[in-house]
């Protein structure tokens, strides 16, 4: 039994009886226990729940019933997605012991499909960060080099999937938080179109930018997981009621004539030369497969970072106002409620969260709204227009996912601005609300993964999956295993 099996193999194994669901999940937990001391991908484990569910599925299969489409597939869930009965902390002291009384929509979908939740994964606190170093509960290691960061904010899920601790995972992406860790950990990460997947149960960071999405080792698994979580949910007013296409059917390899836009602003200065080279090589391979490259310009790229770092903190400052020690979470007691709230929030939030709340509060405050938040929202219109207009003349836009490969722990933590620069390639997709996917396209000389990103038209995840699948099927990057953990396979 291969700890790195994909969804199809897991399904074959369990339907044929070769590996039962219970056997597999048992092996997974053993693997998790071996790898955790080095990686610390998880904040809490779901041993009992997973074993119970596994047993039920095995019985169901023996009784001849069709198990769900993800039956027995081990999944890692980012700890900002509410899971009923399972601690959900958003990697914050504020929610250290908090147990939700309800499931988020995507978790309901997972449970219904038969997937087994392995555990809740580490992340940057309240999804604010690009390295998972802003977690209140320790850092996570990169499966390819445990001294390095897995990226963020969905670093725990990326590490878990990249190291085989789970087959698939859910992350969330506000400025790149699925794609960037996917790139740094050598896996596939997809940020769906805003409104494609329900945010009900996702602990909000910046509502107009947040999306939940799949993180997997292969494009096929990504398509399969997206199929399960995408679609209308009446509990999220921003979730669009559009039919969900068959994403697996999009994996037809047909990219002849595909027009790939290459924006000048995303290459050159500010991009690590090895990253630049790997991405260009990958694009050339797509040309060999019949695609066309076109030079394009996304003129408002220089303004993206600033617009994002005004909009996201502003919305966050409001979304995090509910953490006041009154109904749940941490409370630091005091004489009067104002003092209690103020002290609770000071004790419960880490420095990056506080910084963004302050920045956001300032950007919205009286007299500053027009200059900051108002301006950023207008810049956003221009960024979105650039992308949507460009996607009329090309089918997808290709860029590096992260400007640099994984850095060492502690390398960028003293300078917030240096950390923010990790998002320069991913932010525009969130501002524009368009779908974007990252996949592995090579390694640095020191063996660190490099990610290739595609942006697509709104609600056209199929196109992204198609081109990514076409690239993946012509390469074998995705078959490599991190040496540090591969040696541990049973």
């Amino acid at each position, binding site marked *: 039994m291969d700890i790195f099996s994909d969804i199809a193999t897991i399904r074959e194994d369990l339907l044929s009886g070769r590996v039962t669901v219970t056997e597999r999940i048992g092996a997974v937990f053993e693997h998790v226990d071996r790898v955790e001391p080095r990686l610390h991908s998880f904040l809490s484990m779901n041993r009992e729940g997973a074993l119970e569910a596994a047993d039920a599925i095995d019985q169901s299969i023996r009784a001849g019933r069709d198990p769900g489409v993800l039956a027995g597939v081990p999944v890692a869930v980012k700890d900002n997605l509410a899971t009923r009965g399972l601690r959900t902390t958003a990697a914050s002291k504020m929610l250290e012991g*908090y*147990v939700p*009384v309800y499931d988020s929509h995507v978790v309901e979908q997972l449970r219904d499909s038969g997937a087994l939740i392995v555990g809740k994964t580490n992340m940057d606190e309240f999804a604010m960060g690009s390295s998972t170093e802003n977690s209140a509960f320790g850092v996570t290691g990169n499966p390819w080099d445990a001294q390095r960061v897995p990226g963020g904010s969905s670093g725990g899920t990326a590490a878990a999937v990249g190291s085989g601790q789970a087959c698939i995972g859910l992350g969330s992406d506000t400025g790149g938080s699925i794609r960037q860790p996917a790139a740094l950990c050598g896996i596939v990460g997809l940020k769906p179109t*805003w*409104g494609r997947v329900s945010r009900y149960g996702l602990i909000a960071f910046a509502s*107009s930018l947040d999306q939940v999405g799949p993180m997997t080792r292969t494009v096929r698994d990504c398509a399969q997981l997206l199929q399960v979580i995408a679609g209308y949910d*009446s509990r999220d*007013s*921003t979730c*669009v*009621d559009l039919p969900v296409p068959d994403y697996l059917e999009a994996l037809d390899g047909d990219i002849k004539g595909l027009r790939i836009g290459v924006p000048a602003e995303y290459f050159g200065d500010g991009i690590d030369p090895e990253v630049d080279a790997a991405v260009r090589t990958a694009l050339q391979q797509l040309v060999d497969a019949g695609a066309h490259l076109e030079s394009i310009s996304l003129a408002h790229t*220089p*303004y993206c*970072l*600033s617009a994002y*770092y005004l909009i996201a903190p502003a919305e966050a400052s409001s979304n995090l*106002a509910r953490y*006041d020690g*009154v*109904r*749940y979470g941490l*409370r630091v*007691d*005091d*004489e*009067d*409620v*104002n*003092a*209690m*709230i*103020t002290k609770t*929030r*000071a004790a419960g*939030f880490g420095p990056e969260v*506080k*910084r963004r*709340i*302050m*920045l956001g*509060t*300032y950007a919205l*405050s009286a007299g500053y709204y027009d200059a*900051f938040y*108002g*301006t*950023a*929202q*207008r*810049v*956003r*219109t*221009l960024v*979105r227009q650039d992308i949507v207009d460009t996607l009329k003349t090309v089918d997808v836009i290709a860029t590096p996912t992260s400007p640099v490969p994984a850095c060492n722990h502690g390398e960028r933590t003293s300078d*917030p*601005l240096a950390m*923010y620069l990790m998002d320069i390639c991913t932010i525009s997709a969130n501002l*524009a*609300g368009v779908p974007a996917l990252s996949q592995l396209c090579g390694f640095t000389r020191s063996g660190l993964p490099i990610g290739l990103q595609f942006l697509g038209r*709104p609600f056209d995840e199929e196109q992204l999956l198609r081109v990514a699948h076409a690239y993946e099927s012509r390469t074998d990057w995705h078959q490599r295993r991190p040496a540090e953990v591969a040696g541990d396979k049973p």
Partner: protein
Amino acid sequence: MSDTQSHISIDDVARIARLARLALTEAEQEAMVGQLNDILESMSVLRTLDVSDVEPTAHVAPIPTPLRPDVVRESLSSSEALQEAPQKADTSFVVPKIVG
């Protein structure tokens, strides 16, 4: 601390911290002044753009807000509602006294 243009003063920081209900120590406030000024300075590029006749984007989804029928749905039991309460009395949430 950088010597860039000063956008925010220590008084601003104190005022914003009050608005945001964050008790910052003096040291934290000092550090915050520098960090916020650096961040705001990095955004000065926005001032070079004329966006006066551009509409702001509040939402990137192409639809109006959906409506829900006026039908009562089951509420949580009061014990579920209070399950995570730091302090409760009977079925009420308890907080230190509210002044003013």
